């Protein structure tokens, strides 16, 4: 029995001789390769998702192209209106960038929660977006911060809002010959109260049951602006648009918190899976929204 199980595990593993991996070394060379046979080459950066699928024998593509360490994807540019984070920046790069910590603290929190240190040294922001897990920790922060993506191919560059990039479970608007080059973060949220939480079995090395990234700005006792994004409660990371609509322009009191909790629970589409249940997720998502509103209310009083 034991031997049988052992043999099956070995068989499940991928055999490296069945796979091609090339490393063209520059961004133009990589996009040229992607353009020659769109959809055939799977880009691999730090491998923290791709190599896991490979180890499990679940990698659909047999041809991989390394984009690890491409200089064109590794910079963090600070412009007057936005910060452009190269898609190849690792979570460690994000944690170490002071300007991101100052203006986009929820992204740094998410980077700290992703994997352990070794995974943070290899996992990239672009990889997290393209891997498109509904449970990815950094994605609600990108939604809340109104991020935009610069996509690149031999056809040129195009810029699209990150919101709407995920069109369904693990589906994205990335064309087969495109790469994400950079993630643009508009520098207009420094005056906002921010609230990011991950609910999981533990922070490191555990995938979220529910995660949230929320921003709010008070004008006295009234909510002037609010942006709430959640992960792990729908096929894609999502904004709580109906909850935001309910909240805008209102004074926070117990009744408002109660109806926000209800609206949030109604607009998410959680499921039962190995990590949690739909019921737990709906209850916790409501609790997180309530906790955020209490924080915001305290700020309004201050």
């Amino acid at each position: 029995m034991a031997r049988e199980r052992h043999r099956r595990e070995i068989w499940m593993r991928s055999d490296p001789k069945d796979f091609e991996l090339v490393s063209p070394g520059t961004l133009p060379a990589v996009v040229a390769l992607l353009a020659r046979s769109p959809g055939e080459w799977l880009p691999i950066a730090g491998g923290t998702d791709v190599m896991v699928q490979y180890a499990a024998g679940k990698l659909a593509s047999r041809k991989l192209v390394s984009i690890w360490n491409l200089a064109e994807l590794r910079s963090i540019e600070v412009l007057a209106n936005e910060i452009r984070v190269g898609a190849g920046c690792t979570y460690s790069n994000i944690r170490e960038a002071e300007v991101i910590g100052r203006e986009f603290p929820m992204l740094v929190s998410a980077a700290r929660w992703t994997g352990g240190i070794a995974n943070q040294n290899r996992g990239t922001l672009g990889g997290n977006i393209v891997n498109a897990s509904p449970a990815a920790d950094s994605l609600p922060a990108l939604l809340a911060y109104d991020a935009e993506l610069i996509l690149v191919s031999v056809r040129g560059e195009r810029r699209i809002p990150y919101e709407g990039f995920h069109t369904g479970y693990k589906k994205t608007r990335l064309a087969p010959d495109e790469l994400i080059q950079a993630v643009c973060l508009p520098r207009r949220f420094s005056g906002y109260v921010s609230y990011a939480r991950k609910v999981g079995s533990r922070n490191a090395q555990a995938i979220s049951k529910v995660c949230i990234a929320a921003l709010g700005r008070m004008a006295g006792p009234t909510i002037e602006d609010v942006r709430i994004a959640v992960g792990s409660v729908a096929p894609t990371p999502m904004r709580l648009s109906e909850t935001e609509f309910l909240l805008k322009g209102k004074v926070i009191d117990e009744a408002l918190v109660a109806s926000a909790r209800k609206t949030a629970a109604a607009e998410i589409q959680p499921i039962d899976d190995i990590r949690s249940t739909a019921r737990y997720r709906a209850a916790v998502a409501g609790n997180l929204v309530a906790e955020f509103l209490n924080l915001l209310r305290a700020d309004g009083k201050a």
Partner: protein
Amino acid sequence: MSGSLEDRTKSEISFTVNGVQRTVRAFPMERLLDVLRLQLGLTGAKEGCGEGECGSCSVLMNGALVNSCLVPVLQVQAASIVTIEGFDATAGSQALQEAFLKCGGAQCGICTPGMILAAAHLLDRNPKPTLEEIKEGLSGNLCRCTGYLQIFEAIAKAAHGERTASS
């Protein structure tokens, strides 16, 4: 046989391992972990989970802690790799090893090479970590023997001298 079809689809990959320039012939998607253990005979890095969860296969790649089970060997072309065997020769290693011995930080030993390298990576960036920072630095390294307290204590001892992690 060097002329076989299989061998021709392999690539020649050169990198530094523990300060020594090495060239291997390997399939580009072979895991760094396997090349280190099977081709170079460096068996300090262990395979625990094979999916980046446990940290037993930790090595330093250009100074950064990585899980070698998730690194296709082509990506280490021209890189510098340090395994526990190479780290063993450094002064920092002696202090950590003594502290692990004194505090009972190593039991079965499977996680220990990864724990020591993760600790070294932490102390390199943060020479006087708090207990919270030690826990975070080691959060990607699992140990099923010690319950972690002895390991945290060992790292605190190595960093702060005789003070323990709780002080």
